[in-house]
Structures are given as structure tokens and as C-alpha cells.
């Protein structure tokens, strides 16, 4: 068959699987896995990204493979939506794989071979999820993805915390998968097989469509880390090795979003506005909860994981608005909302991957994981600091980087509210935009805290024992690690400065799903101006932004050097004349969050231990817990425990009782038969 992006994508997935299997070869101190596997995987990732982009512009291609069930072979399909997510998967995983090549250099051979296998099976499973076009292949790829990532999360399983994190992760992933399976069952409606084509044209009554929506929303939401089912995310992502955490947070959460969009927009089809309101409410709650709890963390990777929860909330806000508009019969504004959500999915994948890689370098090179142990890292790790700064500015949605573009598009969608007929929803939409603004500002505060405490200021002496002794001079990562981070940082810049090219791609994706595109003068706005609806309504030019600021900065430096002398004198920090300046006088991570604890007090479950007045060794400890454990997770566990204890009474050990059971069953059935 002719070479098409679909065949290319399948070839790339197969290549990943082959690399994964080859990585198992332990010969030569696992030389294949150490030297060849990851860079090769990155190249395959790039190829996949190219195929994804091509697929957006080409007509949808579909194929049935020979594998699979006898009457339901694996169907594979590549349409613009799948193409976009393949592009995301390929591009971001390329950077992460290059970084992983450097990161896993000094792993023990037996661990490295296993990590290599699971890493590439994980990538291939994600690609298959995006390509799957029937319920069976989708479920197989979905759970293989969960399985492979579970084994990655529990690589160093000698710590009990990581084991329990892994278990919780796989449990919630499995429950989510069960909900998705039930949703496919309801969509099926009874005739035909389980391919997505059959599911599409099975018409549903509004009630069953809503039930299918709720199942899909909570099934995929469990995997995306949505509010009620998010407890696994801050446990599992930090437990994995850093490149894997980047993949988990950056790319795997996006396959959950892909699943949600595929089922709601494509399979169910007729979107209702009530669904949009549900998504908006949960999205807003997730956003605020994610960022408020991120501010309370002092473990860097756990903080980044909570930010993933927050950004998933932002994506849900975009999706919710788009569903409300489509539900009310304004598909043009609906497409804009969908584009904003998909754009933020891509942006989050890029900058969250970059931040996790930065955190990985700190952990790998310095063995530091707790913010209260770090400080002044910018002096010894300047490049990592630079890349981390770019990631921090991008996640805080500051121009001219990519984070701002997608939040700006989400604001523009909210500003289309007046065209809605429904009074209440029309005024609710801007309020959700306000929660988005609040979350954006809080993220900025959180990343000032992270960057300020970790990279700037004086190095603090570590209170926790440093686990991994720094193998190298504790400086920046190796060339591969820096290249990986540079690739993602460049991604932040390109997506931030040239959004119109990505807007055209997303417009095609939106059109393929809803049949509507952006207004034509939005598309004709050239590469310089980003125009969502009409130039008069709103336009934004990141390039001019950057040029003006950089121009003025250079101009001022020149003028100051020309007209005034550039003399500089170095001395002790001023600090209002206080002589002995010690690193302990700097803010700690918890101190930085103190004002938030004051303002949002009741939200947190705080366990505080204050030292007594005459305490010889005063020790202040603060532990902020997640209320959901006590609202949802522990009650469910206790319920299961209660039911099983009741059922255990069935097996009391006396043989006469067992005989009695058999006797009563026989008599009951005989009575029933007569």
C-alpha cells in the first residue's frame, strides 16, 4: 500500500516496540540500552511528529490490522485530531528521550534494561491509543499504557512510599478503564461490532448520551487527574525517575484529554450545554485546588505534579466553554474554545516536560529534591537555571512565551459570552475566566517561589540526607540532557512567538470534529498577528512584544554605558546594614506559602506542631493534607472492608453448615422449579 502518514505512524510505533525489546539485551553492560536506545527513540519520535503533522492536512486514513479478535480485528485510523496528538507525543517525547539518554547513563545494567523496555512500550502504547479506532484496541493500548507506566513508576520499589503510590496509581487507572469500557458498552447500543465507526452512527437517547458522557468524563478524568480522582497524581509522578515523570505529566495526561475529546466530540457527537457546565465547574475546582495545593508543597517534583492537576483544570475550562457554546448552537465560538484547550494541551506538554527535566537535573546532579535544601543553584547550574526560568515563565502564562497564548485564547473564548441566550450561563462564563486569571497569578507566585528558593539566593545546608551522592561535579547536566531541555525550551519559544501556524493546524482539527472553523480573517492574519475572531475584536503579536522589550533593554544599556560610566563596586549585601548574613535567614518554601495559608486557610487540612516556650530543641513542623482522602478514598476503602467482613461470615469453618448451604440451595431450586 502507498506510503501514507498512517503507515508511517504505525511503523514508528513498531520501531519503538522493537527498540524496547532490543533494550533488553544485557550484552556489554546493556550497551544498546545505554548508548543507542534513547537517541534512536528520539529520532523515531521526531518522525512520528512529522507524520502527525502531515496527517492533519491529509484526508482521514483508516486500516484494519490482522491482529485482534476474530470478529473485531484491530482498526487503526489517523484523522486530524489523532494527527495533532501524535505530533504532541512525538515532539515532546523526542526531547525527553534525548534527555533520558544522558540521564540514564550511570544506571545499573539490570535496571536500565527494564527501564528501557518499559519506557518504549509506554511510548508505543500511547501512540496506539491515539491511533486506535475500535473499542478493543483502545482498551488494550490504554491499559498497556497504564501497566508500562506502573512498572516505570515503581522502578526503585524498595521505598514503601513508592510502592503505595504505584498501587494507588494502577488501581485508579484500572477503575477509570472500567468506566471507559462501560461507556463504550452504552455507546454500542446493541447492533454491529465495537469499531468506532459503528459507535458513531449508533443513535442514543439524550439520557443514555448523558450517562455515556459522565462515564467517559470520569473515566478519562481519573487518568487525567481531575479533582475527585486526582489523589494518585501527586504520589505517582514524583515517584518515577524524572524523564518518566516528564512523560507521565507531559504526555500521558494528554492521552486522557485525547480520549475525552474523541468520545465526547466524535463518538457521542451531539454535545449538550449542561455537560459543558459540569466540565466547567469541575475544571475550575481542579484548577484552583491544584494551584493552591502546589503552593503548599516543598518537594519540587510533588509541586510540579500538583501543577499538572492545575493545568488539566485549565484545559477542562477551555473544553467546558467550547461545549457550552456548541450546546447553545454557536459552533464558531465553540471551535475557538476547543482550539484554546488543545493549544494549552500542547503547551502544557512542552513546558511541564521542561520543568520536570530541570527538576530531574537538580535531583540527578545534586541529589536534592526538597526545596528547603536547595539555594543558589544558578551559580553552579546556569544552563539548567536558564531553561527552568523559561519553563517557569511559560507555565505562569507570561508573554511572549506559549503559556500566555493558550490562556489568552481561553480568555477570548470567555469574552464571547454575550452571544449566549441563557442569562445565568452567560454571566457565569466570565466568572470562570476570573478563576483562570486567579489560577494564573497564583502559578506565577508559585514559580517565583520555586525559582527564587531553588536557583537564587544562598545555598541552604540540606536537612534531609542527600540520597544520591552527586556523581559529577554537581554542575549542569551532560550534553544530551542540555540538548533535551534546549529542544523543549525552543518549543516554548516557537509556540509562543509563532502561534498562527499552530492555530491553522488546530483549526483543521476543530473543523474535522465540529464542522466549523475560525472566521476567515482570523486565518488570513499572517504569521505576525494572532487574531482569534476579528482584528477589531482582539489581536496579539508576540514577535513585536519580544522585539520591543529586547530593543529597549539593549538601547538603555547602550545609552547608560555611553552617557554615564559603567563602574561597578562589589561588596556585602546591604540588607539595611545588618552585618552577619546567614543562609538560614532566607525564606523557606513553607514560609513563602504562609500568606496563602492565611488567605485560603479553611481549604487546607493543616497539622502543625509548634515548639513550646521552654523547648530545648524547638522544631516547627507543618503538614498540609488533602481533604479528599477523608471525603472519598478512605470511606470507600472502609465500605469494601465492611462488606467483605459481612461476606466472610459465609465461611465459618463448620462442615455441617456447609452441608446445610448445599441442602438449602437444592431445596430452594427444587421449589423454584416446581
Amino acid at each position, binding site marked *: 500500500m502507498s506510503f501514507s502518514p498512517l503507515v508511517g505512524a504505525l511503523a514508528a510505533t513498531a520501531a519503538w516496540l522493537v527498540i524496547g525489546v532490543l533494550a533488553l539485551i544485557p550484552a556489554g553492560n546493556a550497551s544498546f540500552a545505554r548508548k543507542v536506545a534513547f537517541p534512536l527513540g528520539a529520532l523515531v519520535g521526531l518522525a512520528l511528529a512529522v507524520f502527525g503533522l502531515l496527517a492533519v492536512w491529509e484526508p482521514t486514513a483508516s486500516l484494519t490490522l490482522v491482529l485482534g479478535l476474530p470478529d473485531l480485528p484491530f482498526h487503526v485510523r489517523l484523522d486530524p485530531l489523532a494527527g495533532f496528538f501524535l505530533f504532541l507525543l512525538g515532539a515532546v517525547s523526542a526531547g525527553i528521550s534525548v534527555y533520558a539518554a544522558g540521564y540514564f547513563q550511570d544506571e545499573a545494567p539490570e535496571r536500565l534494561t527494564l527501564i528501557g523496555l518499559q519506557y518504549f512500550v509506554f511510548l508505543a502504547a500511547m501512540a496506539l491509543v491515539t491511533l486506535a479506532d475500535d473499542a478493543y484496541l483502545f482498551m488494550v493500548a490504554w491499559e498497556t499504557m497504564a501497566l508500562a507506566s506502573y512498572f516505570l513508576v515503581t522502578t526503585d520499589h524498595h521505598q514503601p512510599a513508592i510502592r503505595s503510590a504505584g498501587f494507588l496509581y494502577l488501581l485508579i487507572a484500572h477503575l477509570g478503564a472500567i468506566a471507559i469500557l462501560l461507556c463504550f458498552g452504552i455507546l454500542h447500543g446493541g447492533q454491529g461490532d465495537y469499531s468506532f465507526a459503528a459507535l458513531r452512527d449508533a443513535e442514543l437517547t439524550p439520557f443514555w448520551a448523558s450517562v455515556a458522557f459522565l462515564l467517559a468524563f470520569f473515566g478519562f478524568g481519573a487518568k487525567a487527574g481531575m479533582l475527585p480522582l486526582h489523589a494518585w497524581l501527586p504520589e505517582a509522578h514524583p515517584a518515577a525517575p524524572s524523564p518518566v515523570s516528564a512523560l507521565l505529566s507531559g504526555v500521558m495526561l494528554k492521552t486522557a484529554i485525547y480520549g475525552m475529546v474523541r468520545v465526547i466530540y466524535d463518538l457521542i457527537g451531539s454535545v449538550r450545554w449542561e455537560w459543558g457546565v459540569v466540565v466547567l465547574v469541575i475544571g475550575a475546582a481542579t484548577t484552583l485546588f491544584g494551584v493552591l495545593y502546589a503552593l503548599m508543597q516543598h518537594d519540587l517534583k510533588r509541586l510540579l505534579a500538583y501543577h499538572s492537576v492545575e493545568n488539566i483544570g485549565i484545559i477542562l475550562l477551555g473544553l467546558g466553554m467550547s461545549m457550552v457554546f456548541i450546546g447553545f448552537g454557536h459552533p464558531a465560538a465553540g471551535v475557538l474554545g476547543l482550539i484554546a484547550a488543545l493549544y494549552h494541551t500542547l503547551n502544557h506538554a512542552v513546558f511541564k516536560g521542561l520543568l520536570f527535566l530541570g527538576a530531574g537535573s537538580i535531583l540527578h546532579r545534586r541529589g536534592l529534591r526538597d526545596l528547603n535544601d536547595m539555594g543558589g543553584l544558578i551559580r553552579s547550574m546556569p544552563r539548567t537555571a536558564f531553561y527552568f526560568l523559561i519553563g517557569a515563565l511559560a507555565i505562569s502564562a507570561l508573554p511572549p512565551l506559549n503559556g500566555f497564548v493558550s490562556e489568552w485564547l481561553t480568555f477570548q473564548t470567555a469574552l464571547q459570552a454575550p452571544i449566549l441566550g441563557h442569562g445565568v450561563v452567560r454571566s457565569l462564563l466570565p466568572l470562570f475566566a476570573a478563576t483562570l486569571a486567579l489560577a494564573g497569578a497564583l502559578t506565577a507566585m508559585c514559580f517565583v517561589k520555586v525559582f527564587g528558593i531553588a536557583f537564587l539566593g544562598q545555598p541552604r545546608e540540606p536537612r534531609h540526607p542527600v540520597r544520591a551522592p552527586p556523581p559529577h561535579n554537581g554542575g549542569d547536566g551532560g550534553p544530551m540532557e542540555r540538548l533535551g531541555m534546549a529542544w523543549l525550551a525552543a518549543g516554548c519559544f516557537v509556540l509562543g512567538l509563532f502561534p498562527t501556524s499552530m492555530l491553522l493546524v488546530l483549526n483543521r482539527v476543530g473543523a474535522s470534529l465540529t464542522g466549523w472553523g475560525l472566521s476567515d480573517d482570523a486565518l488570513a492574519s499572517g504569521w505576525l498577528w494572532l487574531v482569534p475572531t476579528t482584528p477589531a475584536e482582539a489581536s496579539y503579536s508576540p514577535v513585536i512584544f519580544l522585539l520591543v522589550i529586547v530593543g529597549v533593554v539593549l538601547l538603555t544599556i547602550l545609552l547608560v554605558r555611553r552617557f554615564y560610566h559603567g563602574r561597578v563596586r562589589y561588596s556585602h549585601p546591604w540588607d539595611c546594614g545588618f552585618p552577619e548574613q546567614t543562609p538560614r535567614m532566607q525564606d523557606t518554601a513553607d514560609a513563602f506559602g504562609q500568606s496563602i495559608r492565611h488567605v485560603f486557610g479553611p481549604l487546607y487540612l493543616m497539622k502543625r506542631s509548634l515548639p513550646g516556650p521552654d523547648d530545648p530543641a524547638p522544631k516547627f513542623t507543618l503538614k498540609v493534607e488533602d481533604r479528599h482522602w477523608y471525603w472519598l478514598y478512605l470511606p470507600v476503602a472502609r465500605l469494601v472492608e465492611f462488606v467483605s467482613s459481612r461476606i466472610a461470615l459465609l465461611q465459618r469453618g463448620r462442615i*455441617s453448615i456447609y*452441608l446445610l448451604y448445599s*441442602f438449602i440451595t437444592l431445596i430452594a431450586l427444587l421449589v423454584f422449579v416446581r
Partner: protein
Amino acid sequence: MADTVSGQIVNLLAAFLLLVAFAMLSQRRVLSLVRLFAWQGAALAASTLVVAYTTAQPHLYISAAITIGLKVIFIPWALHRLIDRLDVRWDVETLINIPTTMLAGIALVIFAFALATPISQMAGTLTRSTLGIALACVLLSFLMMIVRRKAIPQVIGFLALENGLFFAATSATYGMPLVVELGVALDVLVGTFIFGIFFFHIREQFESLDIRHMEKLKED
């Protein structure tokens, strides 16, 4: 044909069998339990012989012979030897007192008859009316197994159950084909042999044949 002399004899034997089943249910001493079991075997063999004689089916003679050999002579003898070797002479405690068991037994007999009447009309065999009694015997011996607290009475209950089944076979369909009869008899023989082995092991482990010692495997 139903009310011919042989039919009456078979009904008589069936009634006797039901009486023995009831007696076993209420018996206190192990030895008399074994003797009752022997009588039950004898009644079963007699009814098989009568049926064999009237319907002139050769394989029934063989099955009657097996029944006598196995259930009237060998098994009671073996049980006697076992009881002597294990010197378990004292009487048999039951979980529920005798009167309630008897009431349950009566209820079961009535239920068995209600169940069996539609079938017996259809049966063309000479001994179709005894199907209800056979089913009653089966249910009664089942009940006996439930209420007994000692291992040997439980086993005897099981053997009585087998007798009930054999009687049902002869009354419903003039007995199963020979090869099946032989197979079942072989199984019963091997079963009894294995029960004997078990009695010795249990006696050795628990110093008594009381089943209440064997209640540790349970969900706490």
C-alpha cells in the same frame, strides 16, 4: 400390572426402607446404626431381586448380588472392625435434638412425595410409585449427615444416601446399565476404603472423631 404381587412386595420393601432411614436418623448408638445400614442394604437387594425376577432382566441379578456383597456384608463388617480398632463405642451426639430432626424429616418426606408424583405418573415401570420414597431416603440421609457430629455417623449417612440413589435407579428405570452400576459400586467401595484411612488419620491427629475439632480453616 402395578398392583400385582411383585408390585406390592416392592412397595412393602420400599416402605421398610423408608422406616429404616427414619430409624437411622434417630439412632443414638453407632453399632445399631451400622446394623440398620445393613438392613437397608438387604431391603434394597431384595427389591432389586424382585424386580429382576418380574422383569427378567439379567443384569439386575448381578447388581443385586453386588449390593448384597458390598452393602450387606463387606461394608458393615469393615465398619465393625473399624469401630473395634478405634474403640468408638459411646453413643452419638447430634447437633439438633432428635425431635426437631424427626419433624424436619417428615417435612422432607412430604416434600419428596409432592416432587415425585408428577414423574411417577409418567413412569412406565412396575416400581414407579417407589420413586417418591427413594427421593425421601436420599433427602433423609442428607439431613442425617448434616446433624451428626461424629465422623463415622456422617459416613454412614453418605452410604445411606448411595443406597437411596440405587433404589431410585431401580424404581425409576429398572437400574442403570451394568457398566454404570459396576462403576458406581467401585466408587462406593473405594470411597469406603478411603474413609477408613481417614478415620485412622483423624484419630491420630485429633485423638477423637468429633468434627468440631476440624473448624480452624475459616475466614476470621
